[in-house]
C-alpha cells in the first residue's frame, strides 16, 4: 500500500488508502456478515425485523470500524489505561445495580442505548495489557507479569460474578493472549495453566446451579435429554441431519419447527450447518481462518510492541470466539453463552468486534515509513 511511487494508482486503491481500509479484511468481514444475514433470516423464521435490526447494527459496527481505523494506534495506547479504568467502573456500577435487580445483570442503561460493559472489556483488557508492556523489556519480568495478571483478573472476576462465565473466559483469553504474545515464559505459562486447573473445583463450588447443570450436561448429554441436555441434543440433530450438502436455505426443519432453541443467537451455527451442510461449514471455517490469518499478518508486520500485542490478541481472541461457539454447539464444550462472531444476532458484541477490526486496520495503515 506504500507503493504510491509506482505510476498512477487506481482511484479505488487510492481511496482505500485514504480511508485507511484493509481491503482483504473488509471483504472477508463483509462476506461473513452478509452470510450471517442470510442465516439469520432463516434462523429467525424469516423475520424481517430481525434482519433490519441486525443490518442496522452492522451498519453502526462498520461505521465504528471505519472511524476507529482513522485514528492512529498511538492514541489507543495512550487511551487504553483510561478505557480500562472506565470499564472497571462501569462493571462496578453494573454489579451494584445488579444487586437490586433479580438475577443476572449485564446491562447498563445509558438512556439512549443499553450497553454491556463486559463486551467493552473484551477489547479494553488486551489493549491495556499491550499498552502496559509497550515500554517494558520483553520477555516480561515477574513483577510485570503479576501486574498484568491483576489487570486481567479484576474485570474477569467482576464479569464472572454477574454471572457471565462465557464473557469472563473470553476476557481472560484476550488478556492472556496479550501476555502470551508478550513472551510469557513457557514455564510460567504452564504454571498458570496448572493453577487454573487446580482452581477448577473452587470455581465449581462457586458456580450457580444452572452453570453446574450445563457442565454436567456437557459431560453426559443423555443425562436429561428433555431438560438441560435438550439444547445440545437438538443442536446435534440439526447439524447431523444437514449432512454433506445441507437441507438448503430456509429448509432446516430443526430451526423452523422450533426444535432448536436460541437458533438465532448462540445456536445459529447449528442452523447454518443444517441448511448448508458440511461443505458450507468448511467454507465458513475457511472464511474465519482467513480473517484470523490476516489479523496475525497485520500483527507480524506492525511496528511496535503495543500494535503487535493488540493486533495479535484481537486475532487470537477472534479465533477463540469461533472455536468456543462451534465447540459448544457441536457438543465438544459445555454450553457457555458465546455468540458466533459476525453472525449471531446481537448488538454490543458485534459493534465491539467490528471496532476491534477497525483497530487492526488502523495498525495496518498507520505505518511509519522511517521505522524499517
Amino acid at each position, binding site marked *: 500500500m506504500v507503493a504510491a511511487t509506482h505510476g498512477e494508482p487506481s482511484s479505488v486503491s487510492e481511496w482505500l488508502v485514504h480511508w485507511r481500509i484493509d481491503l482483504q479484511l473488509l471483504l472477508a468481514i463483509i462476506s461473513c456478515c452478509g452470510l450471517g444475514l442470510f442465516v439469520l433470516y432463516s434462523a429467525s423464521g424469516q423475520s424481517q425485523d430481525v434482519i433490519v435490526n441486525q443490518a442496522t447494527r452492522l451498519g453502526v459496527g462498520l461505521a465504528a470500524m471505519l472511524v476507529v481505523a482513522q485514528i492512529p494506534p498511538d492514541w489507543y495506547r495512550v487511551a487504553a489505561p483510561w478505557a480500562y479504568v472506565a470499564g472497571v467502573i462501569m462493571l462496578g456500577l453494573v454489579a451494584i445495580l445488579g444487586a437490586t435487580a433479580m438475577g443476572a445483570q449485564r446491562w447498563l442503561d445509558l438512556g439512549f442505548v443499553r450497553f454491556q460493559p463486559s463486551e467493552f472489556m473484551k477489547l479494553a483488557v488486551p489493549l491495556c495489557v499491550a499498552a502496559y508492556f509497550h*515500554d*517494558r*523489556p*520483553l*520477555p516480561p519480568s515477574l513483577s510485570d507479569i503479576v501486574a498484568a495478571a491483576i489487570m486481567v483478573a479484576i474485570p474477569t472476576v467482576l464479569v464472572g460474578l454477574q454471572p457471565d462465565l462465557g464473557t469472563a473466559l473470553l476476557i481472560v483469553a484476550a488478556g492472556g*493472549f496479550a501476555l*502470551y*504474545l508478550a*513472551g510469557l515464559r513457557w514455564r510460567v505459562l504452564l504454571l498458570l495453566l496448572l493453577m487454573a486447573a487446580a482452581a477448577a473445583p473452587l470455581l465449581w463450588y462457586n458456580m450457580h446451579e444452572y452453570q453446574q447443570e450445563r457442565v454436567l450436561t456437557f459431560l453426559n448429554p443423555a443425562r436429561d435429554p428433555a431438560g438441560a441436555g435438550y439444547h445440545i441434543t*437438538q443442536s*446435534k*440433530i*440439526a*447439524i*447431523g*441431519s*444437514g*449432512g*454433506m450438502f445441507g437441507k438448503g436455505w430456509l429448509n432446516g*426443519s*430443526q430451526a*423452523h*419447527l*422450533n*426444535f432448536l432453541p436460541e437458533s438465532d443467537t448462540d445456536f445459529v451455527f447449528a442452523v447454518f*450447518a443444517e441448511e448448508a*451442510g*458440511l461443505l458450507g*461449514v*468448511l467454507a465458513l*471455517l475457511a472464511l474465519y*481462518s482467513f480473517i*484470523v*490469518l490476516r489479523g*496475525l499478518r497485520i*500483527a*507480524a508486520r506492525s511496528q511496535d*510492541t503495543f500494535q*503487535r500485542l493488540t493486533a*495479535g490478541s484481537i486475532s*487470537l481472541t477472534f*479465533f477463540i470466539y469461533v*472455536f468456543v461457539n*462451534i*465447540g459448544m454447539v*457441536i*457438543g*465438544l464444550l459445555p454450553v457457555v453463552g458465546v455468540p458466533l462472531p459476525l453472525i449471531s444476532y446481537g448488538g454490543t458484541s458485534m459493534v465491539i468486534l467490528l471496532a476491534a477490526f477497525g483497530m487492526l486496520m488502523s495498525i495496518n495503515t498507520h505505518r511509519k515509513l522511517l521505522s524499517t
Partner: protein
Amino acid sequence: MPADTPIKNHAAERRLFLVRTIVAGLLMSVMLGVLITRLFFLQSVKHEYYGTRSDENRMRVQLAQPVRGLIYDRNGVVLADNLPAYRLEIVPEQVDDLEQALARLGDLIEIRDVDRERFDERMRKEPSFRGIPIRLNLSQTEVARFEVNRRNFPGMEIRAGLTRHYPLGEIGAHLIGYVGGITEQELLTHDEKRYRGTNHIGKTGVEYSYESMLHGEPGSRIIETNASGRSLRELEFNRPVPGQSLYLTIDAKMQKAAYDALGDNDGAVVAIDPKTGGLLAMVSKPSYDPSLFVDGISHKNYNALIANLHRPLFNRALQGQYPPGSTIKPVMALAALETHIIDPNREVWCPGFYQLPNSERKYRDWKREGHGWLNLTEAIFRSSDVYFYKLGMDLGIDNMHRYGQMFGLGEPTGVDLPRENSGLMPSRAWKRGVRNQAWFPGETLNTVIGQGFMTTTPLQLAQMTALMAQRGEGRRPHVLMASEDPVSGSLQSVSTQAIPPIHLKNERHWGTVIKGMEAVVHAPRGTAHYYIGKDAPYRIAGKSGTAQVAGLAQDEDAPEFEDVEHRFRDHALFVAFAPADDPRIAVAVLVEHGGGGSSTASPVARKVMDAYLLGTRVAQTQESVSW
C-alpha cells in the same frame, strides 16, 4: 545501567513475537482440526442417524380410521350401518375463560357430569391446541342451536364423525351384536397396528365374529409438526381401506316375524334353510337396544340390563340349554328303526304309565289315562311317552347317544357366531367321568323323552330338524352368505360346509319318521293339529315338546297350568320343517315357561314358516324394517 530503565531489543522482541504467533497458529490448526473432525463425524458418519432423528422430531403419524363394513340381510336390507354423528369440540387454548364459556354453553346444550369428567381428563392429557370433545352425539336441534350462536363461542366447533347404527334395534341385537369402545385387553389380543387409532371393535354377534373383515385397514397421515406438537402440514396420506360389507343369510322380515311371533314371551326362535344351513332368523327374547353400547353404556342402563330377571343380554338361541323334551322323539324313533328293535307297525299298549321290571316306581305318560294301542306313527304324533319308554329300554343309552351325536346334539354346531353352548347328550362315559356313577335304567327312560341330563340349545334343535328334513344330508349352520370387496365392489360368496352325512341302512326309515312328524300337524289327533294343522296351506312336519322345569312327585297329579308359578312352568318347544316333501325351512321354537309345546310354541313356528313360505307379513315388515 539502572535496573529500572527499560531496555527494549526490538529485533529480538519481533522474533519472539513471530515464534509465539507460529506456535499459536499450530495450536489453532489443531483446534480447527478437532472441530472439523467432529463436524465430519456428525454430518457424514452419523448423518443417517441424525437425519432420522430429525424426521422423528418433525413427523407425526396419525392413523386414519377405516370405515367399518356394513351388514346386510340376504335381500340387501341394512342391518348395521354408519350414520353421521355430531360432536362438539373445544380447543382450550382458543377459549379465554373456559369455565365461563362452558357455563354459557350449558344453556344451549346439555352437558352432563360424565361429559365434563371425560373432557377434563382428556384436557389434562392433550396439548391445548387440540380439539377435545365436550359432547358426543348431538341431536339435530342441539347442532342447530349451537350453530346459530357459534360466533359467541370461539374455539368451539361441531365436528362430524360416524357412529354405528342398527336399524333393526332389539330385533336383531343378539344376532348382529354391537360394537363398543375397544378395551386395553382387546388391544392386546388384536393386531396393534390395525387398531391403533380405532375406537370401536365388535363385541358380540356378527360384529364380533367377522370383526377382522368388517374392520378394514387403517390409513395413515404423516403430519409435520413443530416442537410443541402443532400440526403444520400433511406430508403424506395413505387412504384407509374400508372394511368389507357382509351379506347375511338372515332375512330381515323373517327376523321381525320371529320376534313378533314370540309376543311377550321369553324364548328363542331359530329358522334355518335346511338345504344350505344358512340361518334365516335367529331371535332371543327379551332383547336389548344394541345402540346403547356403541358409545359406552351408562352405568344406570347397564345395571338395569343386568338386574333384569329375564336376562335380556342372554342369547337363548345359542347359549340357552334346555331339555328338548319330546322334540327328540323322532331321532329316537329313527335310532330304534335302524337298530331293528321295533316294528313300526306293531302296536303297543299304553296304559298311561310304565314300570321298570322289579320296580314299583311308575313312569307316567303326560296323558294320565294313557293312549291305548299305538303304532310308531301314532306314538309320534300323539307323543306317547309310554311307547318311547319301552322303545328306550330296548334301544339303550349307548344307541341314543350315538344317534344323538349324529344329529349334532351334545356339541356346538360350529355356527359362525360367538359363545355357542354345546348342550349335553348324556352317555355312560359322561356319567362315569362327571359323576363317577354307573348309568341307571331310569335315566335311560328320562333321556328317551328328552328329559333328565339331556340339554340342547335352540340352534341345535334347528340343526337337528334341518338334518331330518334333508334326510341326513345337512350343511353347517351359518349366517354369512357373502362379502363385498370395498374397493372393487365384487361379491364373494361363502361356500357352505357339509356336516358328516347320516347314512341309514334303510333309507325308508326317514320316510317313516317324517310321516309321523307330518301327522303331528296334519292328523286330526296330532298334538299340534288343533293349533296349526287345521288351516295349514302346506305340509308341515313337526314335533312338539314340553320340558319339565320342576319335577313332579310320584303319583302327583300335574297341576293346572294357570296354578303354577311362572318360573316353575314347563318350557314349550316345537320343531318343524316345511314343506314336508321339499323342505325349504326348518324351525326350532322355545318358549320359556310357555307350558305346552303344541299350544304355545307351535303357533310361533307356524307364523315364522308362513312368513317365509307364504310371504305373509311381507308388506308390513318391509315397511317397518326398511326405515
